[in-house]
Structures are given as structure tokens and as C-alpha cells.
């Protein structure tokens, strides 16, 4: 076998635009229905969240700011007393099953001991308090979710092997049955195996149940999700439980169950695009010694359904500025669709957690005979814009700060945040993902403007 071209990794200055990690509150409060989020920090954080949440803010979200004032910063006020007063109000107003404190840059810098205060207040108030330090000093955008889920891992109930020994015997029996030749039609295989598989990553509930179905087809039943729809329904973790991530930004969440709860991590590519979904399922099957069934036909079927979109993007080039850590997976999917990727900007690259995804990226490049893109960690937006002027990509996937100015300079853009909110996981949603990518390219009508650029700036950026 020919040796694969290894992608080049570079690291730039880190002068790039991304959202503050506290923005994870926006989707997590919706996902965990009985939660209440309390962001502890200054006005700057609150204002960001208010602007980032846009219209959601008016819908009485279950999140609030504990706004630090001068007295808090100079330690004239007692943090514990202040937080107690505020949490009492949250309890009375909303009656949540859990309060999640989001630590910010402010609490980091003044070294507010949230982890120390939380257990005391938890006792006093009788509500679980989970502390996640999602700050812009250490993290970018989607890594906020990573900090929250890692903190929640500690709250998952203990999985006990002894009480489930009976079930284990069932599993072996079932597995034996499974090996026996199956005369049923492929859709009706034997009953799903009760394997202890917990998936982590916050997905909209419909997407989560689609993933459950995907694995059920292979007779593997998912025993739980982190996060669950309700805090009170967190999955059990412990020795003998396998965990697998659905999103590439969950490094800490992947490490915590392994180190602290003796779980086993299934390292797989992420279920984005039909190719990713298939590789993901195959990997899970291999862990449970199940022979995958009908995956290839299914994948081909999905590709066939995407043909109209593939026509639009085949041969087109794309440039990822990088702000949400989904870049590697989406780039891999787009290369498989026939696109050329010039550059993958990414805030943080965990080569261990994303190893399977990186490998799939290499294989995909080889298979599609496309050059391996450069991967730029902590990119420098200014230099990226200069590079884009040189390369003139057909599409730039970028944050909102650069989208309009790039459009004015005749580079089509797709707003990257949409990938974090849209449903792009699993085979079912491959179409939605391409819908996003192709939208700016399909919009290209005969330009009403005879000119190429609509910007007035002489100096760029």
C-alpha cells in the first residue's frame, strides 16, 4: 500500500475571531430541559450572550447572568453569600433540577473558587450545582460544551456490573444467536444486543434518536446519552461501559470517563456525512464484534440522493477560516463530495481524540485524488484573508465578522456558526449539511452588478 500523504500541521498567532465558549449555554439550556444556567462574570459576557442568542433571549430562556460588580472584583463582597442569594432567586423563579455555573474569564482572573463554593451551596439549597469553567482564556466556542459535559460526567450514576450479570449472560447468548445464519429479511435481525454504549455530545433530540436507530439497525442498542434530555436521566458510567463521541470538540469529555469512571473510549470518525456515519457505525460494530450489515448499500443510496447537490460543488474550492472545531470532519465530507480544500483553520487540534477522523481525511484525499489540505491551528485571520486573496476560493466558511466583507470582495461565504446549530449528523442529515454548503453557490445568479467588488476599502482587512 502506498504511504499516505500526512497532512501538514501549522500553528499561527491565534489572532482569530470565534465566539466565547459561554455561548454553549444557548444550545445546552434547550437540550437539558430541567436545567438552569448561571453565567458568572462581568457585563461583557452578558452582553455577548445577549447578542449571540439574538431572538432566543426574549423567550425567557433558562439562563441568567450573575453580574460581577466592582465590589465582587475587589473582594469587598463575599462570593458565597452573593451566589447563594442569586441561586435562591433562580430556584424560586424556575425550580430547576440542576443549576450549572459557567465560570468565565472574570472568575478565572480573580480566582473565584466556584468549585469550592458549589458543594456548600448544593447542601444548603438542595439543588445539584455543576461547575464548568468555559472561559475564553483556555477555550474557543464549542469547547464550552466540552467543559460542561466533562463536569457532568462526574454526576452520572455508577454502573454496577454485578446487578447486570444476568444481562451479561443474555448478551453472550444473544451474540451466539447472532452468529447463526439469519434467514429473516435484513430489516428484521435478532433483538438488539444490550451493550453498554453511551454516546456523548449534545444533539437535537430528533438527531439523537436517528443515531440510536442507525445503531439499532446493526442490532446495537445505545444505553444512554450524555447529556440526556433531563438532568435526572443521566446515563450510568463505570467499568464495562463503552463511550463514543459524536462531535470533534469533546476532548475533555472523552478523557474524563476513561480516567475517572473506568469506561472504554471508542475512537471513531464523527458521524458527519454518509462516509463519516458509515465509518462511525463500523467502528462501533467492531468494538462489539458485530458484523455490519447493509452499510455499503445504505451509503451508496445516500450519495445517490445527494447527486443534485454534488453537481453544484464538485471541483469547487473551499477555505475554512476556523472557529468551531467541526472543520476537519466537514472538510473530510466535502472532499468526499469532490471539493478541493485549500486550508483548514481550526482553533485547537487534539490529534489523539481526532486520530480516526484525521486518518479518514487522509484516506479520503487519496481516494478522491485531491491534495491534502494544510491544517492551521490557532489561525491568524489577517494572514488568512491575504491568503484568500491569492487563492480566490469559491467558498469561504467563516464567522460572521468576516462574512459580509468577504462577500463584498467577491468571495462567497457560508457562516460557520450555522453548522453548530443545524442538524448535520448522521446519514439522514447529509442533505441538510450540503444544503448549507451549496446555498451561497446556488445563489450565484447573473451578477446584477457589472463590478467585481463592492467594497470601498483601499487597504484590506
Amino acid at each position: 500500500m502506498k504511504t499516505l500523504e500526512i497532512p501538514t500541521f501549522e500553528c499561527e498567532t491565534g489572532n482569530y475571531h470565534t465566539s466565547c465558549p459561554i455561548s454553549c449555554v444557548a444550545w445546552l439550556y434547550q437540550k437539558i430541559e430541567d436545567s438552569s444556567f448561571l453565567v458568572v462574570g462581568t457585563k461583557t459576557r452578558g452582553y455577548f450572550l445577549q447578542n449571540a442568542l439574538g431572538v432566543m433571549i426574549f423567550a425567557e430562556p433558562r439562563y441568567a447572568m450573575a453580574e460581577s460588580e466592582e465590589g465582587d472584583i475587589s473582594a469587598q463582597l463575599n462570593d458565597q453569600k452573593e451566589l447563594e442569594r442569586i441561586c435562591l432567586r433562580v430556584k424560586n423563579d424556575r425550580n430547576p433540577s440542576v443549576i450549572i455555573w459557567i465560570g468565565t474569564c472574570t472568575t478565572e482572573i480573580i480566582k473565584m473558587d466556584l468549585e469550592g463554593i458549589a458543594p456548600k451551596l448544593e447542601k444548603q439549597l438542595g439543588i445539584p450545582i455543576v461547575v464548568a469553567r468555559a472561559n475564553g482564556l483556555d477555550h474557543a466556542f464549542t469547547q464550552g460544551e466540552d467543559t460542561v459535559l466533562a463536569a457532568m460526567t462526574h454526576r452520572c450514576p455508577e454502573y454496577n456490573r454485578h446487578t447486570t450479570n444476568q444481562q451479561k449472560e443474555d448478551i453472550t447468548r444473544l451474540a451466539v444467536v447472532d452468529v447463526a445464519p439469519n434467514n429473516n429479511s435484513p430489516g428484521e435481525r435478532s433483538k438488539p444486543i444490550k451493550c453498554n454504549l453511551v454516546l456523548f455530545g449534545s444533539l437535537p433530540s430528533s438527531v439523537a434518536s436517528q443515531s440510536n436507530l442507525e445503531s439499532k439497525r446493526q442490532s446495537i442498542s445505545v444505553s444512554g446519552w450524555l447529556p440526556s434530555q433531563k438532568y435526572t436521566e443521566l446515563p450510568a458510567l463505570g467499568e464495562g461501559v463503552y463511550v463514543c463521541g459524536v462531535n470533534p470538540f469533546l476532548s475533555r469529555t472523552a478523557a474524563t470517563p476513561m480516567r475517572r469512571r473506568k469506561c472504554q473510549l471508542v475512537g471513531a470518525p464523527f458521524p458527519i456525512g454518509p462516509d463519516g456515519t458509515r465509518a462511525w457505525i463500523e467502528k462501533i460494530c467492531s468494538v462489539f464484534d458485530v458484523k455490519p450489515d447493509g452499510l455499503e448499500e445504505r451509503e451508496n443510496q445516500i450519495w445517490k440522493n445527494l447527486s443534485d447537490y454534488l453537481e453544484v460543488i464538485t471541483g469547487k474550492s473551499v477555505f475554512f477560516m476556523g472557529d468551531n472545531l467541526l472543520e476537519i470532519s466537514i472538510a473530510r465530507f466535502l472532499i468526499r463530495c469532490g471539493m478541493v480544500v485549500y486550508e483548514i483553520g481550526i482553533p485547537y487540534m487534539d490529534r489523539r481524540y481526532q486520530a480516526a477522523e484525521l486518518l479518514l481525511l487522509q484516506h479520503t484525499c487519496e481516494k478522491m485524488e485531491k491534495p491534502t489540505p494544510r491544517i492551521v491551528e490557532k489561525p491568524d485571520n489577517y494572514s488568512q484573508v491575504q491568503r484568500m486573496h491569492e487563492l480566490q476560493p469559491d467558498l469561504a466558511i467563516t464567522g460572521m465578522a468576516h462574512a459580509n466583507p468577504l462577500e463584498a470582495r467577491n468571495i462567497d461565504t457560508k457562516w460557520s456558526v450555522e453548522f453548530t446549530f443545524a442538524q448535520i449528523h448522521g446519514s439522514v442529515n447529509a442533505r441538510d449539511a450540503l444544503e448549507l454548503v451549496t446555498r451561497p453557490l446556488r445563489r450565484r445568479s447573473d451578477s446584477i452588478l457589472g463590478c467585481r467588488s463592492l467594497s470601498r476599502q483601499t487597504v484590506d482587512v
Partner: protein
Amino acid sequence: MKLAYWMYAGPAHIGTLRVASSFRNVHAIMHAPLGDDYFNVMRSTSERERDFTPVTASVVDRHVLARGSQEKVINNISRKDEEQHPDLIVLTPTCTSSILQEDLQNFVDRASLSSESDVIPADVNYHRVNELQAADRTLEQITRFYLDRARKRSTLDRSVTNAPSANIIGIFTPGFHNQHDCRELKRLPGESGIAVNQVIPEGGSLKYLKDLPRAWFNTVPYREVGLVTATFLEKEYGMPYISITPMGISNTADFITQIGKLVNVWASALSGKRINYKLYVGNQTKFVSQAAWFSKSIDCQNSAGKEAAIFGDATHAASITKILAKEMGIRVSCSGTYCKHDAERFNEQVRGLCDEVTVTEDHTEVGDTTARIEPSAIFGTQMERHIGKRIDIPCGVISSPVHIQNFPLGYRPFLGYEGTNQIADLIYNSFNLGMEDHPLDVFGGHDTKGVSTKSLSTDRREINWTPEAESEPNRIPGFARGKTRRNTEVFAKQNNISKITIDVMYVAKEKSSP
């Protein structure tokens, strides 16, 4: 600590960035952690800005926390200087840098030595001022910096322009309808022979700042931003300023009269001509602005005595209160602002024009007040629009904080004579929306809506309604339903009645004072 869900005015650095990015060729460097540069997103989306927002962050990360910024900030300043050659780089502190207490002045001093651009640190205290106050100060700081320099280098031209001219101070990005107001403001004195010397900060160029004192006078259309600069120019350069907001017919007339007074002091001395604006004001009021005629027409008669609640920044809330109360005969039950620092003058402005005044930064207080009053229309910010949605009352947006909808492509000034037309439309349409349901309801239309609870607080008191009584309010037109229900409950409480029957309802109705 304060529990907060929403804020009307943003943090201080936002104000500084707004002013800096309004000027031409000024770059702001924020001393901030990753993700704090969302100002770029706000500007790019709401204003649909075509160009890269001239703001970058000198990122504060773990290393900075451990060892201080050291050379990082200076390198970032030098780099920006080489890449883009801005005229000025404004080093902007954030809450993070104020807690770290790094010596930004020191960075600036060192960076100035090697860079072509001028470099200054924005002088704002994060904890003491909000977005608007910070913008006000930064504008004054930049103006003062360039005027002082011109004075030192004696490049300052102290002569006034031959023809009367004015500066417009305080138009900036992303202000509420600022761009349209600016066009209207240029036209207003322009039609009467007064040139515009300079507009700052929007589109202003730093090399011309030294010519600010050549104007005869300054106008400050918005109270929030520009007053500090105007008072500085008055003190140091003896320039008079007009701080009347030309919003509404009478305010616009006052504004022009004031201009006339100022100009005539000089004009008689310089050219021996006196200008009379009476005729101009009369003509504009009668024919260019439709608002005067509108307030006499039957349409407006219909809304006479209707109730409205108003909330916004000090400039817009006070002006709209005056327009409703004095020019349209609408009853303003409550007028309020979130500009606490300007509360005194706001009170003075709306005294005698409204039943009560609310000065608060807490949107739930505004919501509860509105719910209690139950006006026919609300005029407020985006927040009030959503409050209105929840309690079924139409709302016209008259002030920041805003949203992409408030950056219309069409020409929609709030100031001047065209502004009076726009405001009249806004007000009339808001009331009209509320009235459209009524004929339907009166004739027992297809409306089976329940009663909306008229408080936004989570305050649930148990009073039982019998099923018959429960369905009774549904026969009353929707707009009176809530009031009836509430009056009945208040009456029941006062008389210790725990079950409300149809009889109780009618007794309550008889007893209720109009």
C-alpha cells in the same frame, strides 16, 4: 453580584469601539480574551458593513495571566501599524484588562516610539461607565488629542469660515437610524444657507479635526454622545453649541430658532445680513412636514386620549413623549429611560407630559409597569417590542438597543421635518394595529382568545372563577378583556370573595371607578 437577564446598554469598551470604528482609518486594538471581539460581528451583521471592522484583539490567554502581556500588545500595535498604516490606533481596555491592572499607558508609550500611527489608550473605567458614557468620553479624548497637538505645532487655524457653518457631533456606528438622521441634519441648516463643516465621528478624518473650531457653532443631536466634546470645544475654543434634538415639530422649530440666534450674532458683525427663519419654519411645518396637518386630521382625533407607554434612551424617549403628549394629544401613562446617569434631565424634560416616570435598567420592571398600565401601544426598544408581543400590545421601536430590522435600507430619519413624517407613520400604525381587532371583537368575530395574564412576574395568586364566569369575559371585546378580569379579581380580593361568579363580575363592574 446582580442577577441579570438582559441589559439595555452594553459594557464600556463597546462604546469606545463604536467611536473608533466610525472614524476613517482608525484601528482599535482590544486587550481581551478570545471571543470578546464580537463587536465585529454586531457591526458586520446589523449595519451590513461591507468592510472589515477595524478592530483586532491582542489576545489575553493563560500565558498573559501568568507573565503579563509583556511585548505582546506592543507587537500587535506595531504589526497593525505596518500592515494597514492607520492614522490612529486606540488601545481599548476591557473588563479583563481592568482586573489585570496592566499598565496600558506604558505599552502605548513604548509602541508610539516605533510606529508611524498615533497611539492612545482609551481612558474609560470599565466599572463606572456604560457603553454610551464611554463613547462620549472617547470621542472627546480623540478630539482633544488632535486639537492639542495642532495647538502645540501651531497648525491651528483660529479663523471662522466666511459663510456660517456648523459641526454635527455624535453620529456614529451602529446608532439608531443615525445614517438617515445625518442626511436630514445636513439638509436642515443647509436649506437656510448654513454649511456643514464636519460630521464626527462617522466618516470623520483625523487630519481635519484641527479645523473643527472653524465652524460657527456645534450641534449635538443626541444627548448620549457628543455633549462632552461640545462642552470641551465651548470651554477651550469658545464655540457655542445647540443640544436641542430636532425631533418632532416643536423641537425642530426650537432647534432652527436657536441656530438663527447664534448665526445672527455673528452674521450682523461679519456680513451685516440678518437671517430670518420664521418664514422657513412656517413653510416647512405647514407643507413639508405632514405631521402638523396629521395631528389636526380625523385620524389623529381617533387616537386622542389613548394611552401609551414609552421607554428608551434619554434622547428618544423624551422627544417621543413630547410628540405624543403635545403634538398628537395622546396620553402618555408612563415614560422612562435606562440612561440612569441622565435621569435628572430626563425628569425635567418629561415633567408634566406623562403620569409617571420610570428610570431603570431592569427590563422586568419595565415589563411589569407596562402590564399594569395596559396602554394601547408601547414605544420602546426591541425588548419592549417583545414585552408587547407577550401581553398583546403593539409596539413601535424608537430607540436602541436594536436589531437588524432597525437598519432599514429605505430613508427613515427620526430627526428634522422628514423625521416628523416618519414618526407620525410609526405612531399611527402602531395604534392602528391595535385597533384592527376591535371591530371584529365587537361584532363577536372569530376571536376566542383567552385572557392574557397581565403581569410578567411569576406571581400566582389563586382566585377561583366559576366556569360560567370564566367564559363571560370572552364576550367582551378582546382589548377590554384583561382589564375586566383584573378589576374583578381586585374587587374580589378587597371584599374577601374567593369564588368569582357572574354576579360578582357585574357587581365589580358597577363598583369599579372609571
